[in-house]
């Protein structure tokens, strides 16, 4: 009773709502599937699958925390994979392939960052443009290369010697990325500036925060993380095809929202975005196990985003609620 009267329980629920929902969800699906969900193989599969989405949503979460949005992450992933495979197949070795494809992605991040820091154009319009450019370039690279099956085979051959437990390598990279970025956001000056810019840009400008620089750096961070995610993607799936990675676009935005990160920046924790990604991926895995028509997944995800936003609006204290676009 004292918990309730102090409002501690409420604030606890507000802080850890995603964790509670996640726990309830896990119990529910374990009960529904009768424990078949809990098999070691399935869990390893899900967790290593979610690594790519996890890294991408960490990138997206950092951008969202600074009050912006990056719609280009998924297309950049496709562009990275295609450039990497084509250069690698050209016989130039891993280092050259990694360098060239990373440079291409960082260039797109540069364009995003320049627009975000020099103009007041809404971030989602700019990144929508760069998304289309990256998508088209990805198709063009694959078209010019003209040897898709060879690419697929070569990637497969290259990735095959990975030992049995190698799947978990992706998870380790994911955890490492999470630790590094979460340290950056919570314990460095850069991180505090990101929260400040996302919370109130004008005030942080007047108090001397280098707003432009932070906005720029956040997009560069996002691009760098996309490079890591793409490498993990190639490692895990050993596959590149036209349209690869398109499906991540909605998920990367959905994951932070479901986790309860405030969409207009300044509030939210990185681990919540990661939990959101896990939640989403486990939900999809569960739907597959139960045998739901995969074509309806998109609608289900949309509904979940809606519920997530409603919950986060309900849980936001009224003095923090602002009407923003």
């Amino acid at each position, binding site marked *: 009773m004292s918990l309730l009267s102090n409002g501690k329980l409420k604030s606890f629920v507000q802080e850890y709502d995603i964790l509670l929902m996640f726990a309830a969800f896990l119990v529910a699906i374990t009960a529904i599937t009768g424990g078949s969900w809990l098999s070691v193989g399935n869990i390893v599969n899900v967790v290593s699958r979610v690594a790519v989405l996890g890294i991408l949503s960490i990138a997206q979460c950092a951008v969202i925390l600074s009050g912006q949005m990056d719609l280009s992450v998924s297309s950049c992933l496709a562009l990275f994979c295609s450039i990497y495979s084509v250069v690698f197949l050209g016989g130039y070795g891993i280092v050259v392939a990694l360098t060239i494809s990373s440079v291409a992605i960082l260039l797109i991040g540069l364009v995003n960052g320049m627009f975000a820091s020099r103009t007041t154009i809404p971030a989602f319009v700019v990144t929508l443009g760069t998304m289309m450019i990256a998508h088209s370039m990805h198709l063009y690279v694959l078209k010019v290369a003209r040897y898709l099956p060879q690419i697929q085979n070569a990637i497969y051959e290259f990735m095959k010697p990975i030992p049995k437990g190698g799947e978990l390598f992706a998870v380790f990279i994911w955890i490492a990325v999470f630790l590094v970025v979460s340290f950056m956001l919570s314990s460095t000056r850069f991180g505090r500036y990101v929260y400040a810019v996302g919370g109130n840009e004008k005030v942080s400008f007047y108090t001397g925060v280098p707003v432009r620089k932070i906005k720029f750096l956040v997009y560069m961070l996002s691009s760098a993380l996309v490079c890591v995610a793409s490498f993990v993607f190639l490692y895990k799936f050993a596959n590149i095809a036209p349209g690869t990675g398109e499906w991540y676009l909605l998920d990367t935005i959905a994951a932070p929202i479901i986790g309860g990160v405030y969409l207009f920046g300044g509030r939210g924790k990185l681990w919540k975005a990661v939990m959101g990604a896990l939640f989403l991926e486990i939900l999809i895995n569960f739907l597959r196990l139960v045998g739901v028509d995969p074509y309806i997944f998109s*609608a289900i995800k949309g509904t979940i985003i809606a519920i997530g936003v409603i919950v986060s609006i309900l849980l936001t204290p009224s003095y923090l609620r602002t009407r923003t676009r």
Partner: protein
Amino acid sequence: MELRRSCSKLKPGQVAISNLTPLNPFLFLMILLSAHRIFRAKDFLLKHNLIIALAILVSLMIVLFPEFLFSKGILLSFFHMCTILGILVIGQSIVLIIGGIDLSNGSIVGLASILGAWVALSHGVSIILVVTFLACVSLGTLSGLLITRASFPPLIATLVSMSIAEGLTLTVTGGAPLALNNDALSWFGVANVGGVPVYSMIWIGIVISLYVVLSKTVFGRHLYAVGGSERTSFVCGVDTSRIKMMAYMISAVLAWLGGLIYVCYTASGCPRAGGFLYMLDSISASVIGGLSLYGGRGNILDATLGTMFFALLYMMVIFLNISPVLDAAFRGILLLVVVLYAFMKEKRKS
């Protein structure tokens, strides 16, 4: 020196009387007049930049490809490119005017097309209008409700209805396109009067009527008011929720119409008919047409000019034989250039 400095600060309509020296009034007057002339020309260029760009583009097309002038097929395809996009642009413009954004219109085109074809095949053509209309308008209503009742940001609310539309679209036929064999629908898709398709006339009719509604009626003024400042218009007694709701519903209805025209033109329903590209293009064309992404500014006629500009640019891409794979990059670059241009213009004004 003094004089020149004072003249350079002049703005149109502003007379710097304090700097008028009695020694050289004549010289001053001349400079003032010429400056005024220059400003006027610049004003004219800025105000009608879209028409000028259109004229340049058309003349460029005629110089490069003389057959552009005479071919009926080219006129037909020009109108075809304009129509569906143009109808979506009107809806997007209305949503942009109230300060929102609609990401779902492209997906609603896809839903209307596949649902229309499916209903026409399984239950006959007669109820196609009712069923597709209900499905599409309920999606628009959903975005409107989420925005007005649950205070969702428009971006997320329309993203939600977009993903629901995508899911339904794929579920109806399991992702497969449907071919139609119906004379009435096909007639509507190909009938034309002197190179102007019948469905394009619907588009032109909508443009004119909605232009009148937006500029001459109370509802239209309320749309601009809500876009200009939602709080102020609420305080002044405008039912802002109703206005916003209406805007999203109109956008959905227009997207529905676009989807049906797609069904008639291709005599098939395709889950990939709409989607991302239409949505992107509708935003870019509206912004080219001078609509502000922050709401409260612009009109439908200019947005329609923007659509025509867009369609002409695409025809040019096709004529120049640029790879279709690069099409999306072209659109993306165009979007960036356009928003950058609009931003520069705003900056110069303020």
